[in-house]
């Protein structure tokens, strides 16, 4: 049986009192010895920060294991659930505290799956924030190697001098982020370049 999926709709401007929750951005405590900050800014087509976007991340732990543990909405401070949610602030900036994910397969470069919702964005967008890795590792990765070379950098998080990972998102423009679509996940962009 194949059923037609229910369409998505924009998250709108008024999700702020409903979807974000205390601790959503902290997959681990800042005091965790392996804690890393993953942060960035969401930009619109004019290069202006988007103040009403929401991000979710979903990732394996540092060994590449995928958590099957509940508790993301009420964290116990010990269990790594692999999922978090954060709204951007008034300057379009988001911030998560998490672990650097391990690889989930022999040729797979480690990454955090990122989902973006925003007012004005009709349906969620998926992308991947790859960790800075050896060039050979990135070149072998099946997804990265399928992306045109001039756009590949939009999928790579960069290491800041304070050790944090920076991953900006651009809805449009020269550095437009590569957004992903999957088999069985219909998405209609409307006219594209």
């Amino acid at each position, binding site marked *: 049986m194949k*059923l037609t*999926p229910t369409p998505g709709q924009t998250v709108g401007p008024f999700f702020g*009192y409903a979807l974000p929750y205390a601790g959503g951005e902290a997959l681990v405590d800042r005091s965790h010895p392996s804690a890393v900050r993953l942060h960035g800014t969401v930009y619109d087509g004019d290069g202006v920060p988007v103040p009403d976007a929401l991000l979710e991340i*979903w990732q394996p732990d540092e060994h590449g294991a995928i958590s099957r543990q509940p508790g993301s909405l009420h964290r116990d401070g010990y269990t790594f659930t692999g999922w978090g949610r954060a709204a951007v602030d008034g300057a379009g900036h988001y911030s998560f505290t998490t672990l650097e994910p391990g690889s989930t397969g022999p040729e*797979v470069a480690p990454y955090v799956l990122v989902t973006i919702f925003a007012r*004005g964005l009709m349906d969620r967008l998926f992308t991947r924030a790859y960790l800075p890795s050896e060039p050979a590792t990135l070149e072998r990765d099946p997804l990265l190697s399928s992306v045109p070379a001039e756009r590949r950098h939009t999928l790579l998080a960069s290491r800041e001098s304070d050790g944090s990972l920076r991953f900006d998102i651009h809805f449009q423009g020269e550095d437009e982020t590569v957004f*992903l679509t999957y088999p069985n996940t219909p998405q*209609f962009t409307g006219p594209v370049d």
Partner: protein
Amino acid sequence: MAEKNTDPDAAVLSQAEIDTEIAAIHAEYRAQRDAGAPVETNARLNFPPYRSSLLRHPTKSLHHADPEDIELHSPAFGHRDVSALESDLTIQHNGEPIGERIIVTGRVIDGDGRAVAGQLVEMWQANAAGRYMHKRDQHPAPLDPNFTGVGRTLTGPDGEYSFTTIKPAPYPWKNHNNAWRSAHIHFSLFGTDFTQRIVTQMYFPGDPIFALDPIYQSITDQAARDRLVATYDHSVSQHEWNTGYRWDIVLSGSNRTWAEQEEEH
């Protein structure tokens, strides 16, 4: 295409101008579909009548990815995350909220017809006067001290969910002059694969604003738009208590194989 005012709150255009833009996009879509182009089952990311989308839609085609391990799984939620009381939005304060008490119920299934069991469903909405409990909603309609408008639940073994709430009213916005949103409830859903994740809006049957609402009309195909409209179900209504609506939600097909699915049982 003429230069568009990209300020989403400019509210310069009339409803008639927005209606004309929507009609032109829909007519072009229908012509292409009837000539053999794919039937569109989702909202368009690039839909200019919804002004906030102008600078916030990707301009390049989405990149096809083969789902990997993390994308073939979803986070787990349980009773640690969600209390049973959170599905009743009418009992979150000391008093009863004002408005028409309703139950919205249905099932969450995937594109292969399999129930999505034990997964998180979140919802949020305006109150019976069309006002959100959100500081950015400042239009002159009353807040209800007994209604926040946020609910959560976990789906049952057959994918079923149920919320007890108050019927939300339409509300004004600044997309164009005298713009109103159809009454709706926002829903956030997870599947068994993270790629099935959606946020959407449920509407009520017979809403007179449907044709005027560019967010609803961003779905170019009538059959797809209809999938967001609940049906009145008298068997969900209860004597002297509530009216009832039924809305089933179909997530996209799982990318997993049946064998992988079975391993988890």
